[in-house]
C-alpha cells in the first residue's frame, strides 16, 4: 500500500495542473465598448472583480457621456475666468501624458479634438447611429480648428490633487484615443498584486498580453485584416505588451458615394487620408500604444517610420504594423521574432523595417 501512495499523490498533482490552466473570463461593458478579461491564477476570480470595479471607476472619470465625470466637468468650464477643475490623480496624470504624446507626434494626436468630432457626429453619443453623422462645411471646420490646441489645456496642482482647465470657450477634451490604453496600464499592477501572472485584457480591441501563456510561451495576438474584419492577416508573439489598432473600418459613414471615417486629422479637421488602412502600435506602455495607433494613422507610413526610428527605443519603446492601401505591410523589426504572417492569400505582402 505504501508503494501506491506516490501514485495517488501524483494523480492529485496532475488534477491540480488542469485546474490552474482554466482561466476566469469576465466580460463587461464600459468606455462605450465591450471588454473581456481572461485571467489565470489561483485568485483570478477576486482579481476579475477588482479589475471590473477599477474599469468602471475610470469610465466614470473619463467618460464624455457622463455629466459628473472629470472630463465632462472640465469641458463644461472651458474658458471660464476662474475655471480650475479638481480632477482625480489618474485624470491629472492622463491629461499631462496625453499632452506629451501630442508633442511627440507633432500634434497628430490631440485630445482637444472634441469640437471637431462633435461637428462630424463622432462625439458625445454613447451609441452611434447613421443619422448622427454629418459632413460639416469647410467654414464650420475652419471656425472650430483654433479650439484644437493641447497647449491651451493646463494641468497644475500636485500629483495627488491635480487641477485642470481649458483656456478657451468651446474647447473640449475627448479621451477616446488614450483612455483604454491607460486603463490597461492601471489594471496590470492591480492584477499582478492579486497573483495573476498570465492574462489577456481585451479592452475593445486594445489587447494587453500580461506575462506569458500559462505554459510559458508568448501570447499569440492576431491583427485584424482591415479589408475583411472577420479574420486576421498576421499573428504577433507578445508578452507583457499592449497592442492597439486604429483603422478606418471601425466607424464610418457614406454620403453621396464618399466614405468618411472617424480618425480625424487635427490639422485639417477632416478624416485622415494618409494612405493607410490600419495601424497597430505595440508597447509595454499601453497608453503609448493606444495614442500612437491613432497618431500614426494620421501621420502616414513614412512619417510613422521616421518617428519609430527617432523615438522607438525611448522609454518603454514601441513597434508598429502599418497596413498601406496598396496591400503592402510595414512591420518594424521589434515584432519580427515569432511573427506569423498569413496575409499572402488576401493579397498582402510584408516588409520588415529596420533601424
Amino acid at each position, binding site marked *: 500500500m505504501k*508503494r*501506491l501512495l506516490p*501514485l495517488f499523490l*501524483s*494523480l492529485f498533482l*496532475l488534477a491540480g495542473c*488542469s485546474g490552474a490552466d482554466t482561466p476566469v473570463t469576465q*466580460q463587461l*461593458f464600459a468606455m*462605450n*465598448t*465591450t471588454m473581456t478579461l*481572461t485571467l489565470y491564477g489561483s485568485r483570478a476570480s477576486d482579481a476579475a472583480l477588482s479589475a471590473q470595479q477599477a474599469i468602471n471607476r475610470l469610465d466614470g472619470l473619463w467618460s464624455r457621456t457622463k455629466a459628473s465625470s472629470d472630463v465632462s466637468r472640465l469641458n463644461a468650464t472651458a474658458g471660464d475666468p476662474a475655471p480650475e477643475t479638481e480632477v482625480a490623480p489618474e485624470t491629472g496624470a492622463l491629461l499631462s501624458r496625453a499632452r506629451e504624446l501630442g508633442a511627440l507626434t507633432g500634434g497628430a494626436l490631440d485630445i482637444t479634438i472634441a469640437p471637431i468630432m462633435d461637428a462630424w457626429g463622432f462625439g458625445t453619443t454613447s*451609441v*452611434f*447611429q*447613421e*443619422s448622427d453623422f454629418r459632413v460639416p462645411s469647410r467654414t464650420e471646420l475652419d471656425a472650430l480648428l483654433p479650439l484644437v490646441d493641447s497647449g491651451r489645456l493646463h494641468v497644475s496642482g500636485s500629483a495627488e490633487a491635480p487641477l485642470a482647465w481649458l483656456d478657451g470657450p468651446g474647447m473640449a477634451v475627448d479621451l477616446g484615443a488614450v483612455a483604454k490604453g491607460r486603463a490597461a496600464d492601471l489594471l496590470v499592477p492591480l492584477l499582478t498584486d492579486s497573483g495573476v501572472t498570465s492574462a*489577456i485584457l*481585451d479592452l475593445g*480591441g*486594445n*489587447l494587453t*498580453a500580461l506575462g506569458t*501563456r500559462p505554459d510559458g510561451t508568448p*501570447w*499569440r*495576438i*492576431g*491583427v*485584424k485584416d*482591415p479589408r475583411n*474584419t*472577420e*479574420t*486576421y492577416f498576421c*499573428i504577433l508573439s507578445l508578452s507583457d505588451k499592449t*497592442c*492597439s*489598432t486604429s*483603422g478606418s473600418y471601425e466607424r464610418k459613414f457614406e454620403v453621396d458615394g464618399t466614405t468618411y471615417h472617424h480618425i480625424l486629422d487635427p490639422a485639417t479637421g477632416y478624416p485622415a487620408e494618409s494612405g493607410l488602412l*490600419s495601424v*497597430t502600435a505595440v508597447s509595454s506602455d499601453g497608453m503609448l500604444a493606444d495614442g500612437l495607433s491613432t497618431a500614426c494613422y494620421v501621420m502616414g507610413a513614412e512619417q510613422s517610420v521616421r518617428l519609430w526610428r527617432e523615438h522607438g527605443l525611448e522609454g518603454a519603446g514601441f513597434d508598429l504594423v502599418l497596413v498601406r492601401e496598396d496591400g503592402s505591410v510595414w512591420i518594424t523589426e521589434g515584432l519580427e521574432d515569432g511573427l506569423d504572417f498569413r496575409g499572402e492569400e488576401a493579397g498582402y505582402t510584408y516588409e520588415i523595417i529596420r533601424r
Partner: protein
Amino acid sequence: MRSSAAERTRPTFWDALVVLAVLAAAGSLLFLFRPRSGNFLTARIVLDHELVAEIELTALTGPVTLEVPGAPYPITVEAEPGRIRIAHSGCPNQDCVHTGWVSRSGGQIVCLPNRLVISVSGSNAPEVDGITG
C-alpha cells in the same frame, strides 16, 4: 536499522503492479484529455451577462432563426451550418448587422445597445489568444 526495501535489488510483484498502475493511469488521463477530432463550432448568445442560447453550429442541418427574448431592441439571430449572424436588429447603429457572418472559432458579434454578445468557439484550440483591431 535499514528498511527491507533498500536491501532488495530485484523488482517484486508489487513493483510491477505499481508500474502497471502508473501506465494505466497515464493512459486513461491521455484518453480523458485527448483533443477531439473535427471542428465543432458552438455559438453562445449572451444578453446582458445572461446566457440566452447555445447553438451547436456544426450540428445544424439547415437555417435557424431566433428572436432574442428580452432584448431592448428587437433582434433576430440567424444560424446556418457552421456560421451565425445577426440578420435584423432594431438598434440604432446596426454595427451588429454589419458584422455579417461569423464562422471562425474566437469570432464575436456584439450589439452594444442591446448589451448582446455572440461568441463562437470551437473544440479545436484557437490559433490566437486574442485579436487586436
